[in-house]
């Protein structure tokens, strides 16, 4: 290539096009790899993999599902130039064995098979149990043995699950409701005693309250009796399972969620089970320190928090931007304010968390408690972390994004429109209301989308203002006033941290971490998609010929 043709090539900009295109390609590759890794690691856990029965060289047998395999570090030798392999099995039966996972060296395996009668039990406690079904007992007496026991099992498990559901509902709804009323009665009685003495009227009220208290306690006892009956009914059946060690355990069906024999399942049945597991994960509640079960409360909490934040940040940010762009006299002061707003977007989120804790939780919440809920003190109502304070903290965090985007949207509205409206005798307010704001709406929504994406992914400020590892109740339920802004909540981002780093069974939690991450990404994408769709609708409606 001659000098001049090199110069021509340089000038033509081809190289630059290649550079920019490879930048895009690299970004796409990284995003694709990240998503791929998360999906492969996370989505695999719901697949009902075959259960292997392995005889080891030392005579022991082992039943479990292979998880992964690797080359043993520093195992290269003349006989094994590539190093020895080993496989990690989930052997379950944590209550009996004391461990859940086990590495098995490839050398040590004598025989390996996948007999059809191996079963895995998904349990409410202690993780999975692997073994063979031997017999079925009802109140200690055998009712079925061998293959008959297995075929009798499925309907009984379903029945046990229904019973569990009922028990859960009674505990959760009815007894909770009674407890809530008892608590409110207790608080009302306490409120009567706030000034340390009872007037005649107050004494009468107090007696009334005491009578209702007795009635409620009676109701409570009745529910507790029902619960006793149900619990006994649920514990009626037991299944005897022989483990890999030959030891036989009796497992009450009330502790079983599902029993599967994956080795005898065909492809379609496995797919069905996979989908059912996936659904249980999305819609279920967490168990076993969050390492098992579902993540529904965290999805709900995340979406709820983002929505409350949106409601808070939108009017606030748009108002501020309107003033800055439309009304304030442009000068050094406004420039300074604008710089400050831009910089606010760069403040680390934990700083907002600390501010939220100090201002919202302690100051605002404490004041609300002192004024509105004095009878509950020293137990805080709003003076502790809750979904409202977390949402408001995030609203503060994201308000700069909304202000900047709104200002840009406002400044993009052509001057022709404003003058056209003013020239028709509209006031400035009418012009803003009827012409400027509608035209700027797509820009405003872009800001909101950015704000939502940022808010949904924040964890640090939430840890200080209301997120918990396990919330007993959702922030929205059937109890008056239906939306409980003072409640603590669960959040996908915090759930990832909690499951990944705070759980007792790290290996079992690993796929949960990936799945939760995937869910978080999906939730953020879905929230954004909805906003983008709304924006596109508006764009079409307010399409302008003036570019």
């Amino acid at each position, binding site marked *: 290539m001659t000098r001049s043709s090199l110069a021509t090539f340089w000038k033509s900009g081809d190289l630059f096009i290649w550079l920019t295109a490879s930048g895009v390609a690299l970004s796409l590759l990284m995003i694709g790899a990240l998503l791929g890794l998360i999906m492969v690691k996370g989505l695999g856990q719901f697949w009902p993999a075959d259960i292997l029965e392995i005889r080891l060289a030392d005579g022991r047998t082992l039943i479990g599902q292979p998880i992964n395999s690797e080359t043993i570090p520093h195992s290269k030798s003349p006989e094994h130039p590539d190093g020895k392999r080993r496989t990690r099995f989930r052997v379950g039966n944590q209550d009996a064995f004391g461990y859940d996972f086990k590495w098995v060296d490839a050398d040590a395996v004598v025989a390996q098979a996948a007999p059809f009668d191996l079963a895995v039990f998904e349990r409410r406690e202690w993780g999975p149990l692997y073994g063979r079904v031997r017999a079925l007992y009802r109140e200690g007496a055998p009712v079925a043995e061998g293959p008959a026991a297995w075929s009798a099992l499925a309907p009984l498990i379903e029945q046990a699950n229904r019973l569990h559901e009922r028990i859960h509902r009674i505990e959760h709804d009815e007894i909770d409701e009674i407890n809530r009323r008892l608590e409110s009665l207790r608080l009302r009685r306490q409120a009567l005693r706030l000034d340390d003495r009872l007037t005649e009227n107050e004494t009468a009220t107090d007696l009334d309250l005491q009578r209702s208290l007795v009635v409620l306690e009676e109701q409570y006892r009745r529910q507790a009796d029902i619960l006793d009956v149900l619990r006994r009914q649920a514990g009626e059946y037991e299944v005897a399972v022989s483990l890999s060690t030959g030891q036989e355990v009796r497992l009450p069906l009330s502790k079983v969620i599902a029993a599967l024999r994956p080795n005898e399942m065909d492809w379609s049945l496995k797919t069905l089970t996979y989908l059912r597991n996936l659904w249980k994960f999305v819609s279920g509640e967490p168990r076993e320190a969050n390492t098992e079960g579902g993540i529904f409360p965290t999805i709900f909490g995340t979406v709820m928090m983002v929505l409350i934040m949106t409601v808070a940040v939108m009017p606030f940010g748009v108002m501020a931007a309107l003033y800055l762009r439309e009304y304030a006299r442009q000068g050094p002061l406004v420039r300074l304010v604008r710089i400050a707003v831009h910089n606010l977007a760069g403040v680390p989120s934990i700083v907002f968390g600390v501010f939220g804790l100090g201002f919202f939780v302690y100051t605002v919440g404490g004041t609300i408690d002192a004024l509105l809920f004095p009878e509950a003190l020293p137990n805080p109502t709003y003076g502790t972390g809750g979904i409202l304070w977390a949402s408001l903290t995030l609203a503060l965090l994201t308000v700069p994004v909304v202000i900047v985007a709104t200002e840009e949207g406002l400044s993009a509205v052509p001057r022709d429109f404003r*003058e*056209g*409206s003013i*020239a*028709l005798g*509209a006031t400035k307010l009418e012009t803003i209301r*009827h012409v400027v704001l509608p035209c700027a709406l797509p820009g405003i929504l872009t800001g909101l989308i950015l704000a939502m994406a940022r808010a949904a992914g924040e964890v640090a400020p939430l840890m200080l203002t209301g997120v918990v590892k396990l919330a007993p109740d959702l922030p929205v339920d059937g109890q008056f006033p239906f939306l409980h802004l003072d409640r603590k909540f669960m959040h996908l981002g915090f759930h990832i941290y909690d499951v990944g780093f705070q759980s007792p069974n790290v290996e079992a939690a690993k796929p949960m971490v990936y799945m939760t991450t995937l869910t978080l990404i999906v939730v953020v994408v879905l929230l954004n998609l909805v906003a983008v769709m709304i924006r596109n609708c508006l764009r079409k409606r307010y*399409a302008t010929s003036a570019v």
Partner: protein
Amino acid sequence: MPVNPSPSFAPNKVRDRWTPSTVPTSTSGGEPAQAAGPLPTGNREVKIRIAGMNFYYGTIQALFNINLAVPANQVTSFIGPSGCGKSTLLRCLNRLNDLIEGTRVEGRVELDGLSLYDPQVDVTDLRKRVGMVFQKSNPFPKSIYDNVAYGPRMQGVREKEALDRLTEESLQGAGLWDEVKDRLHQSATGLSGGQQQRLCIARALAVQPEVILMDEPCSALDPIATGRIEELIFSLKTRYTVVIVTHNMQQAARVSDRCGFFLMGELVEYGDTQTIFTNPRDQRTEDYITGRFG
């Protein structure tokens, strides 16, 4: 703004509020004594009178001692090279320059003998009496109907029949009705350039103004659309007083009855269009209209 049940324009607060005797002269105390324009307006009533007017953008003076009288129900055109101040003067007539920070007016600008720059003037009422059409057609990104009904709605007209009638009348007045009557509720941005400009005229008519200001209304249009707008301007003068700024001297000659030539912020010459174009008194006017500069 009071809600006005009748479709016709609300009684103008502007007129009720102004009393000529109490109106003080604006800031500098221009030369109200020489108020009458340099030329008589024939037998016609004077609609707008400008006397001793100076205009400043901050410290830069854009107009110097303008004196002229615009006759009612005629078309008056302002011509001159770019930057000569003709648009600035036009935008003073509905006080649109108020939107620009740091502008200042000295002297008198009168509508029907009443000072526009009196502090008591309700500017929005003034703008209802003095409508405006812009250089670039600027229909709002709303439907055709909503565009025309925008002004009346801002005045509190809510009844559907009244709005319907106003919209139809205005669109007919702008010669657009037949083209758009079947798609009133489609977006105005789908119209062609010429249609958009006529829609803007209809929008201005819907407020039922007395004066219509046009700032180079045809500069972005093709000859056919321009021709239609010029016909429209000609027909408008039976009901309205029209002031038009144009770059196109043929246009000024075709549509206007009176013409003012501006140069460097000064009104060089003002008179009957025919006189200006056939027998200008000033050498600079002659140079300009014969194309020797500008």
